[in-house]
């Protein structure tokens, strides 16, 4: 299996642990990732409020590069906003003759052209539908031992396009977590918005969402996410009283996969998670929840220990 890899800007910056763990986990699963040469920013959610055309031209540039340099490969995007922006080009530009011509006229300025042949895939889609849960289970050397994890999907991988999971009741990440030996906790915050860039422009508003999500995650050993902005919003304000004083590690799904696959540093970069203090890090390394006293938590877990 081989994909054209689009890391996106965040994964080269404050979310390097996501990039590093994606590459390590994919390599462990025998998946080859080839970076799209010369890729640039997709515009995130900042292009749309500034320029209608730029909103399509920025992601289209990257698809055009993939089409030209890595023909036949689907693009794999781990970041939610990157995934949606790239997918949006295929859904809204391709098939709209006028808009497609305008986007290609813009791309023509740098000698590029996008015909519309590149598939856009999210990492959860690839994990569940291309790789499958059985190969993931086979790769496990040290399962998560009943770690209680809340799966946080966020918004843009599920909406507005219903591609690989039900946006109302998503299950794909819960299934991967179960395959890793974790215990996904039921909650109704998995597809709630974390506030996204509202955390920068109007933090007092986004803080309500963050506080509600963190509050609902009480009792979890960790929250798993697949979006760099969700991860940042949920962990960066845990010290802020406005966020409700809830402390819980916010980990990328691929970091948890790396741990279950027996990959050690520097493949999972747990030190880069601001929500991890020394005891949480030790708990994750030693699988602390395996030794919890009977009566606390799940009965079946207590029997296993």
């Amino acid at each position, binding site marked *: 299996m081989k994909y054209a890899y689009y890391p996106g800007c965040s994964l080269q910056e*404050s979310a390097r642990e996501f990039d590093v763990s994606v590459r390590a986990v994919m390599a462990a699963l025998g998946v080859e990732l080839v970076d799209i040469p010369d890729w640039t920013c997709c515009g995130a959610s900042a292009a749309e409020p500034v320029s209608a055309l730029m909103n399509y031209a920025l992601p289209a540039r990257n698809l055009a590069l993939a089409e030209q340099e890595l023909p036949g490969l689907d693009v794999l995007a781990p970041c939610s906003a990157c995934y949606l922006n790239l997918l949006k080009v295929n859904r809204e530009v391709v098939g709209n003759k006028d808009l497609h011509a305008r986007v290609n006229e*813009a791309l023509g300025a740098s000698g590029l052209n996008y015909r519309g042949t590149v598939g856009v895939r999210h990492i959860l889609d690839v994990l569940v539908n291309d790789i499958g849960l059985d190969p993931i289970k086979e790769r496990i050397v040290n399962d998560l031992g009943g770690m209680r994890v809340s799966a946080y999907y966020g918004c843009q991988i599920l909406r507005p396009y219903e591609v690989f999971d039900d946006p109302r009741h998503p299950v794909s990440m819960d299934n991967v977590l179960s395959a890793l030996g974790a215990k996904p906790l039921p909650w109704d915050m998995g597809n709630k918005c974390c506030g996204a860039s509202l955390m920068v422009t109007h*933090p*007092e508003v986004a803080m309500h969402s963050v506080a509600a999500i963190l509050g609902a995650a009480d009792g979890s050993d960790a929250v798993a996410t697949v979006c760099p902005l969700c991860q940042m919003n949920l962990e960066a304000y845990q010290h802020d009283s406005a966020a409700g004083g809830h402390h819980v590690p916010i980990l990328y799904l691929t970091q948890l996969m790396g741990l279950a696959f027996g990959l050690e540093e520097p493949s999972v970069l747990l030190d880069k998670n601001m929500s991890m203090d020394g005891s949480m890090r030790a708990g994750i390394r030693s699988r602390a929840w395996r030794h919890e006293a009977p009566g606390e938590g799940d009965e079946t877990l207590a029997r296993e220990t």
Partner: protein
Amino acid sequence: MNQTQAHAWSPDAVTREILEELRGEIGACMQCGTCTASCPNGFAMDITPRQMWRMVQFGMLDRILESKTFWMCSSCYMCTLRCPRGLKLTRAMGALKRLARQRGTWKIRKNSAFYDAFMENVEKYGRVQETSLMPGYFLKSRDPLLPLHYLPLGVRMMRAGKLHPPSSAQKGRLKELFAKVREMEEES
């Protein structure tokens, strides 16, 4: 154009064009209010999303531009997912932000400061460089206290090794694309 005299202001061609496009997109809104009920940020809006679509249908430009409703949209697409008429409401919120930017008052510039700083960063570096994005945003927001708000987070990010000096690997890579799009959008 005298910005202090709101009543003397008449919308320019680009503004009218965006408003017309919006009215086309929102025309089928039947005012059921599902969007308002779905919005996670509705509590912070001065006009509900449902009311906003009515104002778009009526072309109430001044009232629309006075509102902060669309600046509170975090692009979560819940309203778009649930709209029984299948209207692209999140996209319409984006168009409203562009509509307001055409007006260019101080209040609006402050609200769009982050998006503007973000796009300038993309234009300059090709890929967003977080450590230069935030100072760019502070400058545009013209709020001297804003950097202080981010100081504790900046320190924690630095400790976790999350801050990196700007990379110039893709610097200037998008110059031609930005210039071309600017030219095309000025023409239309």
